[in-house]
């Protein structure tokens, strides 16, 4: 965890860790894991709200909890940029992390794979592997997506690749 800012570090320590090593094909064990995912997401979302650092919404899009959809946003120069967020829980979860997708940004940055999957290879995957099965969705958002948005949104805005929604409507 060297190189991470103290804020992220202290937030991370407060997100409840998970204990059940189970993926979507593991039946009852997956249900147990899903409960732990919820607990950890509830704690993280609540914490963000009380710290005035609310930055995402995420809900299971199917009863099995294998597909998740929502929104995430980032404030740059006092303007809020919001993106659709989606991902599937892979069959090999939690051995492999969920591949977080921002489909609206597909093709707008090199720091992304096909379909808008954000690149997590260097900054997040090693952490996930080291902390399997204790990290869950909340940790992936905190350590995977948040730093990605912080690094990429300013570049995307400054290079004109993305425009604020008000600016987009005003100019048209």
């Amino acid at each position, binding site marked *: 965890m060297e190189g991470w800012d103290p804020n992220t570090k202290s937030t991370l320590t407060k997100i409840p860790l998970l204990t059940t090593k189970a993926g*979507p094909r593991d039946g009852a064990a997956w249900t147990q894991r899903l409960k732990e995912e919820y*607990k950890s997401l*509830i704690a993280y979302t609540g914490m963000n709200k009380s710290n005035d650092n609310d930055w995402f919404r995420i809900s299971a899009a199917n009863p099995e909890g294998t597909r998740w959809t929502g929104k995430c946003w980032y404030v740059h120069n006092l303007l809020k940029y919001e993106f659709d967020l989606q991902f599937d829980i892979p*069959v090999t979860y939690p051995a492999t992390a969920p591949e977080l997708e921002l489909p609206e940004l597909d093709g707008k940055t090199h720091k992304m794979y096909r379909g808008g999957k954000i690149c997590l290879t260097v900054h997040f995957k090693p952490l996930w*592997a080291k*902390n399997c*099965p*204790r990290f869950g969705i909340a940790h992936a958002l905190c350590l995977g997506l948040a730093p990605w948005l912080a690094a990429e949104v300013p570049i995307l805005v400054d290079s004109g690749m993305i425009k604020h929604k008000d600016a987009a409507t005003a100019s048209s």
Partner: protein
Amino acid sequence: MEAELKGLMKDLEALKRAIPDQSHQDSISKMQWRADQLVDLANSAPSRRSKVKDMSAEVVDSNPYSRLMALQRMGIVENYERIREFSVAIVGIGGVGSVAAEMLTRCGIGRLLLYDYDTVGMTKTDAAVQTLADINPDVVLESYTLNITTVEGFETFMASLTNKNFSTSKSGSGVDLVLSCVDNYEARMVVNQACNELNQTWMESGVSEDAVSGHIQLLVPGETACFACAPPLVVASGVDERTLKREGVCAASLPTTMGYNALKDYFPTMEMKPNPQCSNSACLERQKEFALAKPARDAIAKAKMEAEASSLAQCPVHEDNEWNISVVADSDVESPAVHGSSGVLPAGLVHELPSADEFPSSLATEEASTSVEDLEELRRQLEALNAD
């Protein structure tokens, strides 16, 4: 197409007669000339050959298999035509997968199963089927446009691998080999999971980001290391691969390179035994089965050795040995085997992904007792937080 072109020629002729004005005649003549060219092109386009019922060694221009069947006469293969009984599944139809598919198609493989979720104007698998069917219509081609890492995609993947409609007589899964030609760690782990569960031999491949090195790994569940037994390694052949990553480009989705280096034409090989502490439970089951089958394997090996020894005793290959030439076993020069379990890597190799830390038992007690809560209640709690 032929009918369309004929129609076009007719229309142009009619137009020419209808407009006697000389200024238009030239341009209509030009259009007629272009249509003529198109007819020529259409006539010269290759037509798909018809299917071949039996592979023949006869050397005539209508027989596409004469060169391959010649391998039999040369003693390279016993019965080449058996290739038509084999099914190969290729996961990932990109730089590696599409070339592998083409080569197998040209060899006359019985059946190819192609998996990819990406598109190139049309789906990659459909594009491949189109091209491959033109190359060799004898190959049975199955196209699966799906993402194998999702629950739904994985189910279809498993069902297609276990489908035995093509050769009902075979034991095991419905395919003979799975080729992993994917470009990311997640998909490799999924192929690994499927093959461990199905006890299916497979080959893993990868090309480095800079395209000058790559790796190939044969994985026999229970017998050799599975993909989860030994996490990806970096071969530092002079430089650490990390130093090759460039600013502004996403780090390679390719894992790492343990194998061929084209710049140095260096191709090291190593054997990897399975890790008895592998995190993949299906791998552990296969390891157990393999260990239990050891007496039977030993008996077969012994019988084979004895048979070879007796045939050798019957007739010495060379009566004299004027130059004192002797055969030295390969093992004398081979590098020592790497044990996935030992944690000790040869000099120059480092683990790219760390293995999971030991789980601190004190933490486990802290987070326990989550089971008392209802999943629906937790879902409602999160939605309540999401609502404002």
